[in-house]
Every structure is written in structure tokens, then in C-alpha cells.
């Protein structure tokens, strides 16, 4: 088996430099894959026992479908060609995509390593939605929605920003590893989804009073957060797409931002609710990670600490705002973490990007901040419209929501005919 030089078989160029970069990107992509485990754990942990298996199934199916669709069409829409608005090359076989941006990437690495790296990133977005819509959304509706996300919603917005010929990229918009492309985008979809599917039975009383529905396993939820954090280093460090001197800085600032954010959320909830809130603090770490993702290559340690702190400070209020003002029931805090953190991070990159970076883009800081805001707004409007359209069609056709009785029984029984915890005495 071994010791045949497999590159000879594929007839490809084989130089140490290139191969090392491929190895780097592959390792980082493997780390990112583990986010699927992280999201699955945090989403089941922060919701109720009676729907735990259903969340697992949703997360699994979304990754599975996303991997297949993104290879067949999503990648083409995202990276193919030089059109500023939508991709156009590489349909049905991503490895054949062509265009200024994608050809460069394929040459610097190998097509497959770049495609796999992009696949695991794409797999994150629908997973964010799954948390916000948990415990009441029909499996089939969720599956179709997440297929739509990897088929067209994510690729088009991604094209604008990560295809170097996209219109936002040309403007100078900077989102290094996905605060906007992945997280805000997922957050907007989650917002549309959670609003349109409605709150879980029992979340709001008729008088609009909120009734907290505690998660059923804080430990497994926390494990999910640690796994996400671990995998996040893969996202931010891997987005260099090569072994680069700057990796050390990226990993350090990523960590500092997460820590600053979690620290602030702990303090704020301690003061505000008189006891530190565990699940919000865990959310806080994620919020700091989301926020630093846009600018981790261009801010320094102190910038990172401030960005994390800003994400943490606002997170608590985003959560309360979502629940109390928007009346959106987001069981795991996905909207606040990913949309809130994503907007904060993209904007704050404007404030803290290094001067060298601004020079290289030939933008003043004010101009750059303006571009970042344009990007945030453009993506917001586009995604909110597109996601809502898809969701409304689903509502009219297969239906978005399970029956009240099914919801009360729990989605594990009603959608899968099993109990996820067969040997445990569960309080329903």
C-alpha cells in the first residue's frame, strides 16, 4: 500500500513548498470539521432532552447534504468565474472551476485541498440555524432550508467577499475568516428562521411574559463550546491558506478575544443577575471568537482584547433584546452570538486594522470603516430577503413547524420514534 508515490499516479506537480501548504490547509480543515461535533453538542445541551436526537440528526444531515451540494454546485456559485455578483464555473465538478481567484488558489495548493477547506467552512452556516430553530422545526423543512443555504444563499454572499473579483472584495471589504460570510450570514438565516417558525410552546405566556426553558445538559453543551473553540483555531489559522509567519499572531489574538469576551460576560451577568450565568458565559467565548474572525490577521493583541470585550459587553444585551423585544425564541443564543458577534467584529476590524493593512488596501481608515459597514448592510438585506423567501415557500408547502402535540411529546418521538435517553428517567 504505502511507498507508492501517489502523486505520480495523479500526475501532478510535487514540490515541497506547495505540499507543505496543502498539508497545513488539510490539517486546519480537519480541525474545522470537528465544529460539527461542537455545534451538535452545544445545541443538544442547551435544549431539552426530548429533542436531543432530532438535533443530532439535523446537524448530521446538514453537513452531509452541504458537503455534496457544495461540491456539485455551491463551490461553482461561490468561486467560479470573475463576475462580481455570482459564480459561474465548476458546476457538477468543483475541481474544474476556473477564474482569476479560484485558479490562483488551485495553483497555490491543490484543487481538492482548497475545495475541502471551503466545504467545511460552508458546513458551519446551516448548523448555526439549526440551534435557533431547535425543538419545533420539521426535519424535512430544515433539511431543505439548509440545502438552499449551501446551494445558493451562502455561495452568492461568499462570492461577493471571498472571490477576489466579487464586488465587495473589489471595494476593499475585509473579512479574513468569516465573521460576515459565515457567522453574520448564518445569524441572519437563524433570525429569519426563528422568527418565522415562532417560539416554542410555553416560551411566552399569553401576556408576553417569558418563561425560561433551561437546557438539559450544561456539561455536554460546555464540551461543545470547548470543541468549537479548538476548531476555531483551524478556521482562523487555516485561512492563511499557507504556512505563514503570521500564524502565531492569528492564534494568539483569536484566543485573547475569546477570553476577553467570556470574562466580560461573566462579570456582567454576575452584576446584572446577581449570579454568573454559565451558558451565557459559554456563549460569550463564542461571541469573542466570532468577532475576531474578520480581522485576526490585521489587528494586534490589544485590538483583539478590545474587540472581544466589545463583543462580550453587547452579547448580554443582544440576548435580552432578541428574547424580550424581538420576541424571537433562540434556545441556544445563536443569533446573538453569530449575528451580533459577526457585525461587531466586522465593524471593529475597521477601527483596529493596522496602518500597514490600510496602506496595502489604499484606503483611509474612514473609508475602510465605511466599506465594512456597506458590506454588513448589503449582506444583511440580501440574506434576510432570500432566507425569508425560502422559508415562506417552505411554510406554504411542506410546512415549517411540527404539530403542537408532536412538539409537546418531543421531536425525538414524533420525528424519529425513539427516545435519546432510553435508560434515564426524564422529566417531561
Amino acid at each position, binding site marked *: 500500500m504505502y511507498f507508492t508515490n501517489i502523486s505520480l499516479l495523479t500526475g501532478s506537480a510535487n514540490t515541497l513548498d506547495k505540499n507543505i501548504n496543502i498539508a497545513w490547509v488539510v490539517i486546519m480543515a480537519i480541525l474545522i470539521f470537528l465544529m460539527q461535533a461542537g455545534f451538535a453538542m452545544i445545541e443538544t445541551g442547551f435544549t431539552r432532552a426530548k429533542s436531543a436526537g432530532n438535533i443530532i440528526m439535523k446537524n448530521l444531515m446538514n453537513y452531509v447534504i452541504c458537503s455534496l451540494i457544495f461540491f456539485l454546485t455551491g463551490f461553482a456559485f461561490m468561486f467560479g468565474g470573475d463576475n462580481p455578483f455570482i459564480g459561474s464555473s465548476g458546476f457538477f465538478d468543483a475541481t474544474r472551476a476556473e477564474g482569476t481567484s479560484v485558479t490562483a488558489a488551485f495553483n497555490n495548493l491543490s484543487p481538492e485541498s482548497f475545495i475541502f477547506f471551503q466545504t467545511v467552512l460552508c458546513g458551519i452556516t446551516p448548523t448555526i440555524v439549526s440551534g435557533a430553530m431547535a425543538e419545533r422545526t420539521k426535519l424535512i423543512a430544515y433539511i431543505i432550508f439548509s440545502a438552499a443555504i449551501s446551494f445558493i444563499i451562502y455561495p452568492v454572499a461568499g462570492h461577493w467577499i471571498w472571490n477576489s473579483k466579487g464586488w465587495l472584495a473589489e471595494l476593499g471589504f475585509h473579512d479574513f475568516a468569516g465573521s460576515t460570510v459565515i457567522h453574520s450570514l448564518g445569524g441572519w438565516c437563524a433570525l429569519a428562521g426563528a422568527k418565522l417558525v415562532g417560539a416554542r410552546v410555553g416560551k411566552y405566556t399569553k401576556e408576553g411574559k417569558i418563561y425560561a426553558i433551561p437546557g438539559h445538559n450544561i456539561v455536554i453543551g460546555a464540551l461543545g463550546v470547548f470543541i468549537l473553540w479548538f476548531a476555531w483555531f483551524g478556521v482562523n489559522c487555516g485561512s492563511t491558506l499557507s504556512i505563514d509567519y503570521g500564524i502565531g499572531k492569528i492564534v494568539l489574538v483569536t484566543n485573547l478575544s475569546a477570553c476577553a469576551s467570556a470574562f466580560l460576560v461573566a462579570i456582567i451577568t454576575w452584576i446584572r443577575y446577581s449570579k454568573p450565568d454559565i451558558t451565557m458565559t459559554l456563549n460569550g467565548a463564542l461571541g469573542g471568537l466570532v468577532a475576531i474572525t474578520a480581522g485576526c490577521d490585521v489587528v494586534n493583541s490589544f485590538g483583539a482584547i478590545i474587540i472581544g470585550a466589545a463583543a462580550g459587553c453587547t452579547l448580554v444585551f443582544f440576548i435580552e433584546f432578541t428574547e424580550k423585544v424581538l420576541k424571537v425564541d433562540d434556545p441556544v443564543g445563536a443569533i446573538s452570538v453569530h449575528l451580533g458577534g459577526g457585525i461587531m467584529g466586522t465593524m471593529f476590524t475597521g477601527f483596529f486594522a493596522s496602518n500597514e493593512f490600510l496602506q496595502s488596501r489604499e484606503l483611509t481608515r474612514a473609508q475602510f470603516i465605511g466599506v465594512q459597514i456597506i458590506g454588513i448592510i448589503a449582506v444583511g438585506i440580501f440574506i434576510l430577503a432570500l432566507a425569508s423567501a425560502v422559508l415562506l415557500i417552505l411554510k406554504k408547502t411542506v410546512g415549517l413547524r411540527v404539530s403542537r402535540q408532536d412538539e*409537546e411529546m418531543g421531536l425525538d418521538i414524533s420525528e424519529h420514534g425513539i427516545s435519546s435517553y432510553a435508560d434515564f*428517567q426524564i422529566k417531561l
Partner: protein
Amino acid sequence: MNKLEIIIKPEKLEVLKAVLDDQKVNGVMITNIMGYGNQKGYTQMYRGSEYNVNLLPKVKVETVIAAKDTARIVEAIIKEIRTGEIGDGKIFVYEIENAIRIRTGEQGEEAL
């Protein structure tokens, strides 16, 4: 004194608690049980094999009340909990010889 043992579906618990509150019941004991009665369970598939879920999760709510209140409270419960569908549950009524409040040592109806 009587004890009411009320068996209901778990999702009715909040309603029942409200009824009992309204009826000025002094205390309750709630237990998760598995039960079957007329509602006989159902068949599911797990990894390609059928299996019978012939026991359904139910909630048992016990409350000890003065004998004179029994009829009134039973009526109130039926009124609020009944859906007319199989599985609505049952109430069993026991006589209780005595009740003692540990905190004070009070006995009988005073202890409720």
C-alpha cells in the same frame, strides 16, 4: 382526610398545578411514572426492529386534602383536564388516617 392520586399526561402538569392552586390545595407530591391503561402504547422502529412502547410516561400528582373538599376538587380537575381522548387519566381517592407536620408536630387536618 383523603389523598387524591391524580394520573395525567406530563404536558397537563402546568394546568393541573393551576387548578390545585385555585382550589387552595396546601401541598403536592409529583412523581414521574410509566403507565398504561386504556391507552396501550404504540409500536416504533429502532434499527429495523419493531419495539412496543407499551408504557407511556405519565405524571402522578398526590395531594392530601380534607374529606369535605374531595368532591369539589375532583370536579374542578375533571373540568380542566378532560379532553375526552383516551389517556386523559384517572383519580384515585384514598382515606388517610393521619397527617403530621414534622416542623410543628401538628396532627390531622391542621397539618395539611
